[in-house]
């Protein structure tokens, strides 16, 4: 009996030793964002926005990067997990925030500095945009459907976009 009980507590000891082990980030933490639809900033500093247009279907924002020689850091506007990197240049990167909200950044000429499955936080640099190829596509998905990105942007970002495109967007 002594050996059996020792065996049982060895199992408990093993659980204690292994607790906290794992690879990458804690899955529950990655997927633990609130289910609310967030208000977000643009994926770059507003001072780097040199132009903007809304697609005809009003489901995508085309942002032209200001300047001609520098590289502009592209950041994640939300906490989430990188769920897709599509294309072979230009690349399209998708960040999953919660079951109701994802964002997509497209037409990236350089390979993003993150991999699929990486947990990213708001403000984390995802890639660099070279201003010799300065157009990026920014899409917002709510409940699985692309919506007008302006509805998710904060006031600062929205005002900056409005300075370039007066197209009404619900």
């Amino acid at each position, binding site marked *: 009996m002594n050996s059996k*009980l020792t065996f049982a507590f060895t199992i408990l000891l093993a659980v204690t030793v292994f607790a906290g082990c*794992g690879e*990458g980030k*804690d899955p529950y*933490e990655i997927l*633990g964002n609130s289910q609310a639809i967030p208000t977000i900033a643009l994926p770059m500093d507003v001072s780097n926005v040199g132009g903007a247009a809304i697609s005809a279907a009003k489901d995508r924002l085309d942002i032209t990067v200001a300047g001609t020689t520098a590289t502009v850091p592209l950041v994640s506007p939300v906490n989430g997990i990188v769920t897709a990197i599509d294309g072979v240049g230009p690349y399209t990167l998708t960040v999953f925030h*919660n079951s109701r909200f994802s964002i997509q950044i497209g037409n990236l000429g350089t390979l993003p500095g993150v991999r699929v*499955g990486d947990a990213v936080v708001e403000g984390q640099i995802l890639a660099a945009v070279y201003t010799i190829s300065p157009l990026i596509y920014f899409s917002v998905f709510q409940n699985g459907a692309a919506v007008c990105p302006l509805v998710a942007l904060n006031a600062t970002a929205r005002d900056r976009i409005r300075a370039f495109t007066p197209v009404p967007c619900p």
Partner: protein
Amino acid sequence: MIQKIPLIGVVYVLGIALANCALCEEPKAEMRLSGIAGGMSYSTAMGDNYQAYTQPRGAVAEAWIAEPHLLGPVFDLHATVNYLPYQVRGLTDSTLNQWSFLLGIETGRGANANWVKPFVSLDIGGVYSKLSIPAAVTSPTQNSSFLFAGQVRGGVDIPIWGKLSVQFASPLKVVFSAKKFVTLNGDVSLRWAL
């Protein structure tokens, strides 16, 4: 790891002390396997996570160990292994696979095999979780964890024939992640008393 060393030490010392205490008196009966069970499990994440995860069906395997000397005639040691593949809502082809390994004490079985028996158990242990992401990439990162977990589990055991019975249980399980993951499960399993 260094921060866990005191905790590991406490668990080890308590375990060995209890194991030795079992030898303080001459045992009246031997520890023995008293039942095994296998079945299916249905799970629902609770709270904010309800919107994040689907309700998966998984598998559950259980075993009971009678230890009359230490636990008396009413209590049994209860061990359970549970697998649940949660789908992540809004994230196509992504799965959070969860394996639970829990050990605890169960009460309420009694001795009469012909009665419908309600039971309650309290189990603790660890849960290994792995987040699988869409496969159409060359080198995805892996996100996995092994975390402490506990569950309170109530249910009834209904005799079918001889030593065979069907049991319906409803474990309320908590995975102690930074963001606690609480699920309410429904288990249906066939139990064979030994």
